[in-house]
C-alpha cells in the first residue's frame, strides 16, 4: 500500500440537534481499493458518506484527498474531486429516455449548440454493454424494471470518470447474474486505479469483492482490517455486537389443513399456469430472477391486479378476489416489497400505520378510540421488539427493520391467516433481519400459512419448507427446503434447466 491514501477522513465528529451521530471516525481509502463500509442501520454510514459527498459538514475533523486538506462545503466540490455517489434510492426521471437520464445535466452538444443525441446514445450503449445490459438508449426509463434502473444509476457514475465511487447498497434490486457483472466491472475499475467505497448488508458479496473493511457501530469506528484476515461471523459480531448464525432455521412443527390452493392462475404477459398449495403452519418460498413474475403473481392473488384467470381457494372455498379488501376478508395479508413505495404511509404516525387495515377493532360507535390504538400498539411493540420511543412520530423516522415490524403488526392486527411477504428483509440490517425471520417462524408455529417471495435464494433456503423457483412467469421447479442448494436453484431460475414438477 502506498503511504498516502486517496481519501483520508480524520477524526470526524458530527451531531444532529445535539445527538452525536459520528464520534471521532477515521476512514482511509487507498487508490484502487474496494473498501467495505459496514454497520447496522443507524450506525452512521450514510452520514459519513454524506460528509464525504459534501452534503453535510463535519463538526470537527478533516478530509484529505491525496494528502491535501479539502473543505467539502458542497456536493459540487466533492464531484470536482472525482467523488461520485450512487445512492440507494434511485434518482431517475421516468419520463425521460435512458440516455437522457444518463447525461442529465451534462449533455453532449455539437458545435451548433444542439444536443448530440447519437453520441450520447453511443456512449450509453457502450457503458451499459460493459455491465452486460443491452438496452435501447431511447427507451423511456418508466418502462424499465427496477434492476435496470439501478444499473443505469451505476452507469451514470461510470460516465463521469470518477476517482472514487461510493455505492450505497447497489445490489438490492439486482438479480444474481447482474450482481456478478457488476462485480466484474468493479474489478476492472479497480485495476484502472478507481477506488470504491461499498456499503452493503450482504456480507457474502462483501467478502467476494472487497479488499478491506471498516465497521461502524453507534457512530464509532469498531475496526478496520483486511478482508482476508476476518471471517464473516466475526464481522457480523463486530457489527451487531453479538454473534448471529447463518444456519438454516430448524422447523419442528406439524402442518395443519390446506389454507390456500391456487390452480391454473394465468395473466397474459405476467405469469401462466401457476399451481401451488399452502398448508397452515407451512412456509412456502418463491424465488427467481428479476422479471420472473412472482411479485405480479401475488399482487394478483391479493387483488391489486385484476386481469387474471384461474381459481383461488381459501380454506377449501373458491374465492373471487377483486380488491385487496376481499383478499383481507378471505384472511390474507400482504407485506409488499419496496417498503417506502408500497407499504408505509409516511405521513401517518407509527400507531396509525399499525391500525390502518383493521380500523374496526378500534372504533366505538363509529369513532376511533385513540387509547385503544395506543394500548394495542404497545403490546405489538413488546411482542415484535419494535424500537420506538414515541409511537406518535411519523413512521418514516423509524429504521427499515422497525418499519417492517410495524407493517407485520398491521396484518397481525387484521387477524389474517395467510401472510404473503415480498422481499421481507429488503434494506434491513443483519440484527433486525434475524428478528424478522424469527417472527415469521413464530407465526408459522401459530398455524399461519406463510408465503415468502425473495430475490435472494439463501433467504428462502434458510426459512422455507417448500421452495418454488420461477422463470419467466412459470414455476420451473419445486423443492423441499432442506433438499436443495443455491446452485440448483440458480439453474432453474436462469432457465438453464426446467422441469414441470420436481418435488423432492
Amino acid at each position, binding site marked *: 500500500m502506498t503511504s498516502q491514501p486517496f481519501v483520508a477522513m480524520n477524526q470526524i465528529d458530527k451531531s444532529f*440537534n*445535539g*445527538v452525536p451521530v459520528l464520534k471521532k471516525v477515521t476512514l482511509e481509502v487507498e487508490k484502487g481499493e474496494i473498501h467495505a463500509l459496514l454497520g447496522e442501520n443507524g450506525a452512521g454510514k450514510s452520514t459519513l458518506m454524506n460528509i464525504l459527498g459534501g452534503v453535510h459538514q463535519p463538526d470537527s475533523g478533516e478530509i484529505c484527498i491525496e494528502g491535501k486538506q479539502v473543505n467539502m462545503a458542497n456536493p459540487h466540490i466533492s464531484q470536482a474531486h472525482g467523488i461520485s455517489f450512487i445512492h440507494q434510492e434511485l434518482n431517475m426521471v421516468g419520463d425521460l429516455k435512458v440516455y437522457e437520464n444518463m447525461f442529465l445535466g451534462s449533455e453532449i452538444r455539437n458545435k451548433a449548440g444542439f444536443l448530440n443525441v447519437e453520441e450520447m446514445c453511443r456512449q450509453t450503449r457502450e457503458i451499459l454493454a460493459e455491465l452486460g445490459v443491452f438496452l435501447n438508449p431511447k427507451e423511456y426509463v418508466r418502462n424499465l424494471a427496477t434492476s435496470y434502473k439501478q444499473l443505469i444509476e451505476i452507469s451514470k457514475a461510470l460516465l463521469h470518470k470518477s476517482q472514487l465511487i461510493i455505492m450505497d447498497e447497489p445490489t438490492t434490486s439486482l438479480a444474481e447474474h447482474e450482481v456478478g457483472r457488476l462485480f466484474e466491472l468493479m474489478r476492472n475499475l479497480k485495476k484502472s486505479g478507481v477506488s470504491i467505497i461499498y456499503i452493503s448488508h450482504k456480507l457474502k458479496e462483501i467478502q467476494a469483492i472487497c479488499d478491506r473493511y471498516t465497521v461502524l457501530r453507534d457512530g464509532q469506528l469498531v475496526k478496520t482490517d483486511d478482508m482476508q484476515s476476518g471471517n464473516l461471523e466475526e464481522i457480523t459480531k463486530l457489527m451487531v455486537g453479538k454473534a448471529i448464525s447463518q444456519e438454516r432455521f430448524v422447523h419442528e412443527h406439524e402442518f395443519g389443513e390446506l389454507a390456500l390452493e391456487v390452480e391454473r392462475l394465468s395473466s397474459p404477459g405476467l405469469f401462466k399456469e401457476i399451481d401451488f398449495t399452502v398448508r397452515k403452519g407451512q412456509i412456502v418460498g418463491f424465488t427467481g430472477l428479476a422479471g420472473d413474475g412472482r411479485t405480479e403473481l401475488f399482487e394478483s392473488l*391479493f387483488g*391489486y391486479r385484476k386481469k387474471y384467470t384461474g381459481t383461488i381457494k381459501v380454506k377449501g372455498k373458491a374465492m373471487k378476489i377483486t*380488491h*385487496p*379488501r376481499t*383478499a*383481507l376478508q378471505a384472511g390474507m395479508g*400482504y407485506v*409488499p416489497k419496496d417498503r417506502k*413505495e*408500497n*407499504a*408505509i*404511509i*409516511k*405521513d*401517518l*404516525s407509527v400507531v*396509525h400505520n399499525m391500525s*390502518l*387495515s383493521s*380500523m*374496526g377493532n378500534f*372504533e366505538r360507535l*363509529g*369513532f*376511533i378510540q385513540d387509547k385503544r390504538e395506543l394500548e394495542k400498539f404497545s403490546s405489538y411493540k413488546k411482542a415484535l421488539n419494535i424500537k420506538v*420511543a*414515541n409511537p*406518535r*412520530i411519523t413512521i418514516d*423516522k423509524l429504521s427499515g427493520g422497525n418499519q417492517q415490524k410495524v407493517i407485520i403488526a*398491521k396484518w397481525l392486527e*387484521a387477524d389474517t391467516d395467510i401472510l404473503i411477504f415480498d422481499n421481507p428483509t429488503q434494506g434491513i440490517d443483519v440484527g433486525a433481519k434475524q428478528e424478522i425471520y424469527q417472527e415469521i417462524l413464530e407465526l408459522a408455529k401459530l398455524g399461519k400459512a406463510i408465503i415468502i417471495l425473495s430475490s435472494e435464494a439463501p433467504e428462502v433456503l434458510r426459512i422455507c419448507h417448500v421452495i418454488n423457483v420461477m422463470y419467466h412467469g412459470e414455476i420451473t421447479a419445486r423443492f423441499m427446503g432442506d433438499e436443495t442448494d443455491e446452485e440448483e436453484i440458480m439453474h432453474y431460475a436462469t432457465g438453464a434447466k426446467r422441469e414441470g414438477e420436481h418435488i423432492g
Partner: protein
Amino acid sequence: MDNINTKEYSPESPSMKSRLSWLWSEYSVIIAFIIIFIAASVMNPRFLDINNQLNILMQVSIIGIIALGMTVVMLSGGIDLSVGSVLALAGVISVLALNASGSILIGVFTALLIGAFAGFLNGLMVAKGRIASFIATLGMMAAARSIALYIAEGGSVSGEVSGFTAIANNNVWIFDLPVLIFFAMAVLIYIVMHKTRFGRYVYALGSNEKAAMLSAIRVDRIKIGVYTLIGTLVGVAAVIETSRLNSISSSSSGAQYELDAIAAVIIGGTRMTGGRGKIIGTIFGILILGILNNMMNLMNVSPHLQGFVKGLIIIIAVVFQKRE
C-alpha cells in the same frame, strides 16, 4: 391534532432555536394570523370594533365552509375547481324548488342534493374514470355554470317564500347564523377527519395511494366520498349565499370561490400533493384572507388592487412552507 412530542427529535436540552423552528413549522399559520391581526389593529383602530370583527366572520363564512371541503379534497391529493359553479347551479335550482313547493325545507334539501350529486359525479370521474381531478372538476366547472345559466336564462332568480332570508340574516346572540353554521361545519369536519376511519383513510390515500390500497382500503369509495362531501358543503354554502339576498345570479354567484377556497387551504399549510395538513390551519387561512380584505376596505385600497395583495400572500405562504 396530535401534539407531536418534541422529545423524539431533540436531546435532553433542546436549543432555543430548534424549539422555535418546531413551533414555526407546526403553527406558522397561527403565528402569521396573530402578526397580521396585531398589525391590523395598530394600523386602523376601527379594525378591533366588535361589529367589524363579526363582519369579518360573516364575510368568510361562505368561502370558509367551501374551504373546509377543499381541505379534505386536497388532503386526498386532489383538487376541486367546480365549487363556484356548482354553488350557482345548486342555488338556482334550489330557489326554483323553493318557489314551486313553498317549503323552505325542500329548498334547502334541493341545494344539498344538487351539491352532493355534482360532487358524486366528480368523484366518479376521478375514482372510476381515472381522470385527473384538475381536469374532471374543470369540466364540471364549465358544465355546471352552463346549466345554471341555461335554467336561469342568464339572469338571477329570486325567492318568493317569506322566511327564507332568515337563514342568512338572523342572529343568535351576537353571531350571524352563517357564522355559527361555519363553526358547526368546522367542528364536524374536524371530527370526521380525526376521529373516524374515513378521515384516516383520506390522509393515507393522499400520502401514498398504492400503499393505502395494499392496506385493503377501498380507495375508490373514499375518493367518491371526498368529492361528495365537498359537494354537500357547497350545497350548504349555496343556501347561505341565496338566502343572504334572497336571490342568486347564474352568471356571477360563486365566481372565483374556488380560488379563495384553495388559497385558504394553501395558506393554512395543507400540502398540495396531499397527506399532510390540518382543518385548523384552513380556518386560520380563511381568517387571514378575511382580515386582509377587511383591512384593504377600511384603508380604502382600490378593489382592483385587492387581488394583487391576495396573490402575494398566497405565494409568500407557499414560499415559507417550502422551507421545511
